[in-house]
Structures are given as structure tokens and as C-alpha cells.
């Protein structure tokens, strides 16, 4: 069993504080943009924890995909829809939701405490899981299992994603706008009629006095 060094404990403590502060911020922020930013904070804290567990690739992907793309999209939607105003947190939308959430939270905490006390697999040591995934760098191990053992699942997932993208494009596409009928040309009084080139033909030829 690996013992946690002081550095490990410090890293874990710092990132745990960041993760928890972010999580609490998500829940109690009245402003959706603040909540989204707190979510980013939590994601960064978790990324640091991943690095401490030697899961470098996971940490990088966490930052690129979640912090870099998904929360940006959240923010984008919040800004575009203009829902970025403060919400009245005191009002309860779903009746009886809060006591239930409170009880479930207590139950979850109790469960965690029991689990951590019952067995001794939480040490906080650096890289407890790193060696478990086999030799070689993170990315190589991951790629090997992704493209051999789990190839079918991988391909099916990618097909599913492509279908989702195509579906989103199809749904988001507006039908080609019905062209409004050409408005009836305004009846132009005869006296305002301007002569045009192709009007010239039917004009009855007038006698031109010979010079």
C-alpha cells in the first residue's frame, strides 16, 4: 500500500477545496453565468485530481471537452437566449423538492463515509490507479484498448454521434422560406407611365412629315 506524501495531501486538499467551492457555487449562484463559471472551476479541480492519479490524458480531455467546449456552449446559449438575469432562489418551483434533496444528500454523504471507513482503499496517494492500467504511457494504453478490445463499441459510438450531428443539422434547418407572391404592380396612372424600350414596338407609327 502506498502512503500519501505531504505533497500528495497538499495537492489533494487544494484541489478538493476548488472542486467543492465550485460545486457549491453552481448550486447557490443566482446568476446562471456565475453558476456556469463555478462549474468550470469544479472541472479544473477534478482535472488536477486526475493528474495526481496519473490520468494525464483524462485530465487534458476533461479541460478540452468539458471546460473548453461544453461550458462554452452553455454560456453561449445563456447569452443568446438572454436568460442571464438573476433568479429568485427563495421561490420553490417544485413543491417538496428541497427536503427530499436534503435527505438524499445526507444519505449520499453517509454512504461515502461508510465506504471510506469500511475499507482502506482511499489513501490519497499519488497514482494509485496509474500502475493498475498496465505499462506504457496513458495515451498508448488507452488507444490500444480502444482500437482492439472495444473497437466495435467505439465505432458504434462514432456512428451514433454522426447520426446525432446530421439529425441536429436537419432539425435546425428551416424549410426554404415561402417566397412571398410578387406584389401586384401598382396601377400606374396613364400620365405617369414612363416609356420603356420594349414599350416602343406597339406604339402606332405616326405620320412623319417628310422633310
Amino acid at each position, binding site marked *: 500500500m502506498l*502512503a500519501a506524501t505531504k505533497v500528495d495531501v497538499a495537492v489533494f486538499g487544494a484541489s478538493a477545496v476548488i472542486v467543492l467551492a465550485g460545486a457549491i457555487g453552481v448550486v447557490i449562484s443566482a446568476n446562471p453565468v456565475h453558476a456556469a463559471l463555478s462549474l468550470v472551476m469544479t472541472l479544473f479541480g477534478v482535472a488536477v485530481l486526475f493528474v495526481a492519479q496519473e490520468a494525464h490524458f483524462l485530465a487534458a480531455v476533461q479541460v478540452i471537452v468539458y471546460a*473548453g467546449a461544453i461550458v462554452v456552449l452553455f454560456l453561449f446559449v445563456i447569452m443568446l437566449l438572454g436568460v442571464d438575469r438573476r433568479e429568485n432562489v427563495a421561490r420553490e418551483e417544485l413543491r417538496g423538492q428541497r427536503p427530499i434533496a436534503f435527505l438524499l444528500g445526507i444519505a449520499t454523504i453517509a454512504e461515502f463515509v461508510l465506504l471510506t471507513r469500511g475499507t482502506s482503499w482511499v489513501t490519497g496517494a499519488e497514482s494509485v490507479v496509474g500502475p493498475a492500467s498496465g505499462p506504457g504511457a496513458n495515451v498508448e494504453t488507452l488507444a490500444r484498448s480502444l482500437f482492439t478490445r472495444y473497437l466495435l463499441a467505439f465505432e458504434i459510438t462514432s456512428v451514433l454521434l454522426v447520426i446525432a450531428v446530421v439529425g441536429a443539422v436537419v432539425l435546425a434547418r428551416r424549410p*426554404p422560406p415561402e417566397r412571398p407572391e410578387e406584389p401586384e404592380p401598382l396601377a400606374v396612372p396613364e400620365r405617369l407611365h414612363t416609356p420603356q424600350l420594349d414599350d416602343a414596338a406597339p406604339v402606332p407609327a405616326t405620320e412623319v412629315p417628310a422633310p
Partner: protein
Amino acid sequence: MYSKREAVGSVTLAGDPLFGGGVDGAVVLIVLLKTGVAFAALMVSVLFMVWFERKVVSDMQNRIGPNRAGPWGTLQTLADGIKLFFKEDLLPEQADRRIFRLAPYLSIVPAFLAFAVVPLGGVITIAGRETRLQLADPPVGILFLLAMSSVAVYGVMLAGWSSGSKYPLLGSVRASAQMVSYEAALGLSMAAVVLVTGSLLTSDIVSEQSRSIVDWNLFRLGFLPFGIFLVAATAELNRPPFDLVEAEQELVGGFHTEYSSLRFALFFLAEFMSTVTMSAVMVTLFLGGPSGPGPDRGFPGAFLPVFWFLAKLMIFLFIYVWLRATLPRLRYDQLMDLGWKRLIPLSLFWLLVLAAMILDRRYGFAVFGAGILLGLLLLRAVQVGQSATDDAAGAAPAVREAG
């Protein structure tokens, strides 16, 4: 504990000789020193870059440019910085105060962090300990760069939103769409480099290219990924001709319209810092980093590689200024078309060709031919589809045009 650390040592410590003998006080001091030096170097390079840009642009426009402060106006940036520092710091009434204050820092931090993984030179010795001229070499090097460039969008986006004003919001919405779309092309051309190198480490990417000039990824990958990266990076940096984020004629000042004083200076700094960082990344990925032309002599001397690095960096800095002085700004739909319809398909295609080339030359050429054929077919299909839609929907305007 140390025996365990050695077991995964190749992963954790990624080969910098500094960490070879464990971590003690001196090592921590050296790392702090390196961080300070890297930060100072980046700051000085920003001072230089601002002056360089103004001077070169004014030369290209037959003007003189800054010439008052210092010899050839070199201290102009410093003077401007001090002036900005003493200006009044305005906070708009409608602003979201906390985020308005936070945004400038969010845009400056990723620029510096991305610079940390760029190898600047060979191995040097400080106080009897060898260390590389590279601040950090994380095992996911390239992914770290991508992560930083995707985080960089927050600064611009939040600055625009938190100002509580229309033009900044428009600017920041443009910025986020632009940066998210061009990141795909950026990532795909980075993937080409990773494919050929077979490693994510920036130090490995440089050492793979250091044998001779033909090993530079610029030539090895066949110019295309480099070109795509250059365009996508310019868009990521919001530099002209992709500077719709702060299009003066349309958006007043774009996302930083409401900023003044020190916070404005921070945005300015961040913009130029990321320009320098992105150029450094391009040197690393495509031009062999600190290795000189010709066969490498194993990083001789401590400062020759640094010289080569700076020389290559200058090329890119000049290109950026040149682009700014030459090209007019793109329209927004042109920008999106370029990103999604041209750069991304092109880089995907080239990635496939490169992967096939690595397997076998014949496969490579087969994929190349098939790709071009399929691309033409697709293009024709799109044309047919488009004209069919036009016929269905647009009969009336056609008549009107004829009439």
C-alpha cells in the same frame, strides 16, 4: 516511494534531467527561477512585438510610426503601458462586477501557460544541475496546448458579456463561435504532427525534427497542415484578417469597448502574448523548434539553439504583421465557410493521406487519388443539390431578374 516513482517515472517526469535525482529545495528554486525568466521573456517579447508591429505596419503604409520614446521609438510601448496604468479605471454601471474584473486575467493566463510547454533551447546547467530550456514537458504536451487554446475563449467571451453593453456582447458572441469552430482545424493539423512523430511530448516533436532540415514537419507533412495551422491559428488569435471580434467599423472596439486603464492593458498584453505564444508553437510543431538548419549537432552550446528559435519566431511575427497590413477583414459568413467547409474537410483528408502513407507509400497514393475523386464528386453533388433547391424555391426571383 521513490522506487514506485521510477516505475512510472518516464510518464511522470518526462525526462528533464533536473528531476532525475528526486525533488529537493534547489530543484524547486530552479523551477521558480525558470518560471520567472519565462514570464519576463514573454513580457519583453510583447513589448518588442507591439513596437515591431507598429513600426513594420507604418513602413508598409509609408508612415514613420513611433519615433519619440527611446531610439527608433523602442520605448513607446513602455510609455503607453505607463500611461494606461495611470488612467482612470472605469466600471460600467450595467456591468457584472466580479466577472468584469476577472475576464482580463482569464485571457492572459492561458497565453502564458501555453508558452510553458514550448522548448526554447538545449540543456543548460544552473548551480551544478542540468535542466532543459523548457518550463514544463507534460506527458500530454500537445493536448495541453489545445486545452489552453480552448480555455482562452473564456476571457474574450466573459469580457463581452459582463460589460453589459451591446457591442461588446456582439463581439464576444462572434469570438466564441469563431474560436470554437477554428479549434477543430487547429486540432486536426496538430494531429498530423502527432501522427508522424508518434508522441505527444513537445520535446519529442522537436527532437524528431532535429536531424536535418528535411525532417522539419513543414516539409515532412507536405506544407498543407502547416498552412491550415497558420490560418486557423490566426483565427484563434483574432488577428487580422479574422479580427471580427473587434471590428472597429462595426463594433466600436469589440469585446473590450468598455474596458479602460490597467484592465484594457491586460487585454492588449494577452493579445500580443498569445500571438508570440502561437508563433512559438508553430516553430515547435513545424519548423523544428530550436534546431538549426542542417544536421543537428546535439544542441551545441547553450545559446545557438535559442538564437535559431528566436530567428524562426521572428519569421512568424513578421508574417502576422504583414497579414495585418495587407488583407482586408473577412465577412462573418466567409469566415465560417472557410473554417467549416474548406479547412476542416481539407485537414481531415490530409490526415487520412498521411496515415496511409505511414502504412505504405502505395496506400498513400491510392488514398490521395480516391480522396480527390470523392471530393470532386461531393462538390458536384453539392452543386446539383444547391441548384435543385434554388430551382424549387427561387423561380420567382429568377423571373424578376430577367424582367
